[in-house]
């Protein structure tokens, strides 16, 4: 598997809404914590260390 940097999410506006909605009403600290939990959960889903490393690079 390689990191997919092409559009891959159906209904991008709907996804973006959902992401922001998850943070609604949270303090900065709670939002930071949620983001961290989300990243860890998604990384586990990917599993493949090479893909995770490529994503870390792309994000940085």
């Amino acid at each position, binding site marked *: 598997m390689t990191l997919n940097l092409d559009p891959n999410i159906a209904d991008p506006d709907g996804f973006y809404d959902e992401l922001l909605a998850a943070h609604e009403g949270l303090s900065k600290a709670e939002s*930071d*914590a949620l983001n*961290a*939990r989300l*990243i*860890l*959960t998604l990384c*586990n889903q990917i599993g493949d260390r090479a893909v995770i490393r490529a994503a870390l690079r792309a994000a940085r």
Partner: protein
Amino acid sequence: MTAIFDTPLYPYVRHPDQDRLARDPVIIVGAGPVGLTLAIDLALKGVKAVVLDDNDRVSTGSRAICFAKRTLEILDRLGVAAPLIAKGVQWNKGRVFFGEREVYDFTLLAEDGHKQPAFINLQQYYLEAALVGRAQELGVDIRGRNRVMGLEQRTDYVSLTVETPDGPYLLGADWLIACDGARSPTRDMMGLGFEGRVFEDNFLIADVKMRADFPTERWFWFEPPFEGAGQSALLHKQPDDVWRIDFQLGWDIDREAELDPTRIRARVDAMLSSQTGTIPDYDLEWTSIYTFQCRRMARFRQDRVLFAGDAAHQVSPFGARGANSGIQDVDNLSWRLALVLDGRSEALLDAYATEREYAADENILASTRSTDFLTPKSQISQIFRNAVLDLAADHAFARPLVNSGRLSVPCVYPDLADGLTGPMPTRPGVACVDAPVGAGYLLDHLQGFHLLALGCDAPDMLADNGIVVTRIDAALTEQIKARYLGDAPSALYLIRPDQHVVGRWPNFDETTVRNALRAAIGRE
């Protein structure tokens, strides 16, 4: 305090060497777990080493308590494991807490078909007493109250000045092995540094003796909720109804105040009553504050002086790698030293240094990672650490990320070619994985250089450069197949005296095996 601390096990006796100029092939400085293990291993190989220690008994108080499988396997090879395992505590239930709440619990299931358990908890002084007993049984010359106070490297020997109750004497050694602990006077006398990444912390250790039943479980807290309990806390059981409690207090503390028994009792009370609401009856057996650093010497061999154990490297306590890795140092060193004394290449000793420096780096890395998880160094690392703990409460995937110390596992020595498409856990460089063989176990048969022939032919023995390699046979049981063959129909393993795999191939090929053996003894 137990009487064992107060009993001289190798009291000072005036030695004839004090009235003459003597020279020994091997002198070991330090009768701690590492020096004693080395002396026993050498004695079993026919080398009589002299052990000098400035004390005459086991180390006082509470030190290592967790001994891992590889250490037990080495001790078994030396004939000391059985009584220690009988005495030791084996636990398998652990509970992890984060602040007020219990995040999860786990049950450790050891893999089947190993002679030794995954680890035992046992006070270090029991190990030391057993090692002293075994060494004495083998006739090892342990000289109590013999303090090394001067050292000079000459061209072909090392000259020592040793202080005794009757005054100083001179002693020469072909090889000096410094097993004199973290503050190694040998290292200092030679003006050598102790380098590496420094991590500093203080740990309050309390050994408490319970007067009533208390569960045999390991409890670990991240951010313990009890006042003054520091950044992490750990509770686990030792023999004799003694429980070890560690509080990680951080670097800037008032040692005096922290050691006040009332203050210690307050936190211990809070911890012990946290799950039941009642404070059990207990005595404080031993309390102390320890400081840890992670570092190692640049080179473990300095000409005719070799360093092993805490003298060579120090790690934080997470993962119990101090004594465990020190014992593996001398497991690696003893057969090499015996061969060098027998006229083989000193390259063997350089290889000791290289392999064990590599192992020390691995142990330091493992304990540094645990430390970073326990004591997050930045705001974002704190956020991730807490996220892992929160997720671990509900989801299994996050639990392997929780790092409160990884149990010591033997190092896989690098740079050895693999001639077989076989199972990874038995690739060249590893310590052989145990498995039942006949009425016993594979490791029972591994004391020297061996060929392990599985489903292929090999000679009964092979001699090369004066080294005799003997063949071991093992029936192709399911466990042997899974651990040593995988999908391969047959395999030939070459194993060295410390039970590490030198090489493996589908079949016996004499030239290949001889070349691998010569490389292992430093004769390309």
